[in-house]
């Protein structure tokens, strides 16, 4: 990346893969389980967190020298909540359909531990530009995992992708359903998301021995 120094590029790249918030830091698991039954919701959630974490990290970073350390967690919460509510209100006024899709995520964004984690661990100690890159990187890493889980859960659970029937019609028995294939309803339930996360962690660590913990 010519635009960014090596250190800055690492801020974005690391959390995408080798320091991924979900698979390595094991943060944000709850929302990864809750909303990945379909691909579209995963993408929307990924983008929302990207926006909130990018903005929030900058705001917290700008305020880092004046935030009283005793109440810093409360201040962080207020910043996230205010950002999310403002975005929600603006969408309700100008993009009503989109806001209805997002409504279910608003609460989940505020309580997402990745956001609080990055505020606490990075934005409080670094300048706004670095904090912005860190926010984008971490939210990106989160989004990638969400999309992977959403892809498999929707494909195997409902036989669709983004709502399109890619495997044929399960009721009329066309496509692969003609061969006796059935959708796996278990994929739609949250436990399966956890198993998919586990599989991703396994693949990732098997490919990169550096990530394996020794016991």
């Amino acid at each position, binding site marked *: 990346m010519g635009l960014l120094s090596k250190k800055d590029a690492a801020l974005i790249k690391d959390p995408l893969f080798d320091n991924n918030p979900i698979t390595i830091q094991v943060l944000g698991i709850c929302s990864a389980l809750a*909303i990945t039954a*379909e691909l579209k919701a995963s993408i929307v959630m990924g983008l929302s967190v990207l926006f909130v974490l990018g903005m929030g990290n900058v705001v917290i970073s700008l305020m880092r020298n004046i935030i009283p350390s005793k109440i810093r967690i409360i201040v962080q919460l207020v910043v996230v909540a205010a950002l999310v509510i403002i975005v929600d209100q603006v969408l309700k006024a100008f993009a009503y359909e989109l806001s209805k899709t997002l409504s279910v995520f608003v609460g989940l964004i505020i309580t997402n531990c990745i956001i609080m984690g990055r505020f606490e661990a990075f934005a409080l100690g670094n300048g706004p530009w670095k904090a912005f890159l860190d926010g984008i990187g971490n939210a990106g890493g989160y989004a990638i995992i969400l999309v992977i889980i959403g892809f498999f859960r929707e494909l195997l659970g409902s036989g669709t992708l983004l709502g399109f029937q890619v495997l044929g019609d399960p009721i009329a028995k066309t496509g692969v359903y003609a061969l006796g294939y059935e959708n796996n309803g278990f994929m739609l339930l949250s436990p399966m998301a956890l198993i998919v996360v586990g599989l991703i962690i396994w693949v990732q660590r098997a490919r990169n021995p550096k990530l394996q913990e020794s016991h």
Partner: protein
Amino acid sequence: MAINTDKNSYTFIFAIVMVVVVGALLAFVSSSLSGTISENIRLEKQQNILYAMGVNNNDEGSVEFISTSEVAQVFNQYIKKQLVIEGDQITEDKEAFLIDLKKEGERAKNGEARRLPVFIGEKDGKTFYVLPMLGKGLWDAIWGYVALDNNLVIQGVFFDHKGETPGLGANIKQRFFMDDFTGESILKNNDIVGVKVIKGNNDPLNNDKLDNEVDALAGATITGNGLSAMLSDSFKLYENYLNSILVQ
């Protein structure tokens, strides 16, 4: 000059200033947008009512409402009468679609009579009675509009929800689920019983229209039960009115 951010007085002042600033900001955003937001909600209600009686831009598989720019005019064209049932009294009210069912539920709890809206629409010479309803899903409110004809057979429905799980309970607003209700009778032995969302009724294609059952959504049992309860509770409220329109 570095500020001593550890002092108690500083912490207090910071907290107070923060609350005032953020509060003012949110209040400003909310009040400056509230007009546009309530207009959006108004149009959405009209779209939903029209959708239930089959006035929509659906193509195969998708849910498409009449566009927001046309809906007010189309609403006036199709909806012939808006009634409000209050106890035994039935009055006409041009703004009946704005009645907030949640508030009416609270009124009923306080012992007052509930105001129940009915929208009477006409399409292709057929009369539709559209009833709004409100219930509880897994996480939050669910609501809907059900269009009946005067045999009390469902002609179309529209369901929506506030926060059901995407891919599971949220699918109550998908075509493949809502379309199953069309043609179902809400009568059983001449009693109004509604329609139940039920697992394993051996009728996934929903060919049996007289069984008062539609096939449930996988992974959304509680949302489905909530929907069944919403339907039977709401039809109960409208029982007298429905019996009065029923052609014997």
